[in-house]
């Protein structure tokens, strides 16, 4: 499929313009002098300066990062275990229920997940705050991690594990020395996905948090409800810059790895 017709070029151009123009406008107007977001009044970085002195946003950002680090780490451990069980576990009692519980949160409306978790936390008398958000985020993120990791486990050659076992490895050693290095990229991208989902979540965090912990999305949402403000534009620009840097770095690393793998394969064939 290597034909480039004018139709494809036009649809891609229009499509990507639709995807990117709103973000570009957002970024440009974060450097606007005026308080009015829609009228250009000259270049200025003053909104970034104000952001640095806004205690509420800084605190919220710190809470959000803490929650994201803890919840994505828990989610990665549990999600990798769940993926391993689903792909390699064979039959066990409650398997259907287990796989149902892995896939259901992926399509569950956030309002329902949030409401149900809140009712649980109140039911068992758990104080709402950072801990409850971490528990909530770990729960839905582990399902995403397990989908990412199991798709890697499905494609990988099981005989490699068997060879390690035949050569005298214990099952734990085989996992650590053979399986883990092979699925590592999937585990890392699972962690990154869990981290981003946690950073991004407004609805579930709003339900499960208490007065002691406000995350960045909650803070942004309550500010944005009152209308557009250049400070939020500045904050958004910083977040977009971080994500862009991350995604481009990740794709360069994968590209580099693919090139190296191809070269190694070619050398192996030659020798």
């Amino acid at each position, binding site marked *: 499929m290597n034909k480039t017709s004018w139709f494809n070029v036009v649809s891609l151009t229009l499509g990507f313009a639709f995807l990117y123009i709103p973000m570009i*406008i957002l970024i440009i107007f974060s450097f606007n002098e005026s308080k009015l977001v*829609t009228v250009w009044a000259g270049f200025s970085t003053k909104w970034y300066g104000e952001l640095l002195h806004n205690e509420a946003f800084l605190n919220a950002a710190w809470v959000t990062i803490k929650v994201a680090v803890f919840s994505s780490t828990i989610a990665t451990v549990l999600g990798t275990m769940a993926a391993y069980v689903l792909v390699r576990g064979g039959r066990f009692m409650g398997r259907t229920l*287990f796989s149902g519980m892995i896939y*259901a949160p992926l399509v569950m409306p956030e309002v329902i997940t949030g409401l149900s978790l809140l009712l649980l936390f109140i039911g068992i008398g758990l104080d709402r705050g950072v801990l409850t958000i971490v528990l909530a985020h770990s729960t839905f993120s582990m399902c995403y991690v397990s989908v990412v990791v199991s798709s890697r486990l499905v494609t990988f050659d099981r005989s490699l594990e068997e060879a390690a076992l035949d050569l005298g490895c214990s099952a734990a050693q085989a996992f650590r020395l053979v399986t883990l290095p092979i699925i590592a990229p999937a585990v890392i991208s699972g962690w990154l996905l869990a981290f981003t989902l946690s950073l991004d979540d*407004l609805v579930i965090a709003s339900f499960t948090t208490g007065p002691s912990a406000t995350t960045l999305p909650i803070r*942004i949402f309550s500010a944005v409800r009152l*209308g557009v403000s250049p400070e939020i534009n500045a904050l958004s620009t910083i977040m977009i810059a971080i994500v862009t840097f991350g995604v481009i770095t990740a*794709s360069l690393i994968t590209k580099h790895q693919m090139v190296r793998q191809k070269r190694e394969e070619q050398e192996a064939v030659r020798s």
Partner: protein
Amino acid sequence: MRRFFLIAPPFAWLLLLFLVPFVIVVKISLSDAALAIPPYVPKFSWAEGIGTYFSQLDFENFTFLTEDDLYWKAYLSSLKIATVSTILTLLVGYPMAYGMARASSEWRPTLMMLVILPFWTSFLIRVYAWMGILSNEGFLNQFLLWTGIIDTPLIILNTNTAVYIGIVYTYLPFMILPIYSALERLDGSLIEAAEDLGCSRLTAFWLVTIPLSKTGIIAGCFLVFIPTLGEFVIPSLLGGSNSLMIGKVLWEEFFSNRDWPVASAVAVILLLILIIPIVLFQRNQQKQQEAEQ
């Protein structure tokens, strides 16, 4: 025995933090609202026994939902908004996925990255970006007034149109990715064969390309439709007071009216509505997996 230690932690975690909460939602949806903390009267107690509990059930929160027309209007309007925006997303997403699949192989990774990048960017920020564009003195109106297409600013923000634009914008990557992966696998020689056998390009597209990308289209549509149905952020930021969506109603019932039993009943019904598309989606995914093997 070792397998048990591998299965038990994720299993127990999901039971406790996913399944048990749902049971609680169902239970509270059957309770009565009360001015207390928590604001409902638990109707079930072990002392009275299960028999009395079931004999006293009255589903009054559910009958309340049918009596007040706000609720069924909200369900219907959520279904309408979700359906229309799924179709719109498909119309925007399919040509893009098609163009990506037909692009040269050097371009594809870059195009792929351009689709994935918004997906990693904060959802909230992407919705927020449209607030400045669609408002009365926003960029869209400024541009249209400048070009002379319109004389008076269009009112778009706080209407359903803004909600549609927001949904198409934020969910577009979910539509493009499954369709692209279906189109990428498609064997180009099939289309050439159809054209050699006398099909026009359009008929070949209609008779070969579309059917062969069907699983991707179905997957993409469900990935947009299912989460849109319970959407909260988009209608509350871009929609107006008359863009009713059930996610917003549930949120307000819970946070503003503090009527937890009714909020739970709203959630139970939303879940019942979602079961059909979720089951269909799972079946489509299974079919696709079988086809790959």
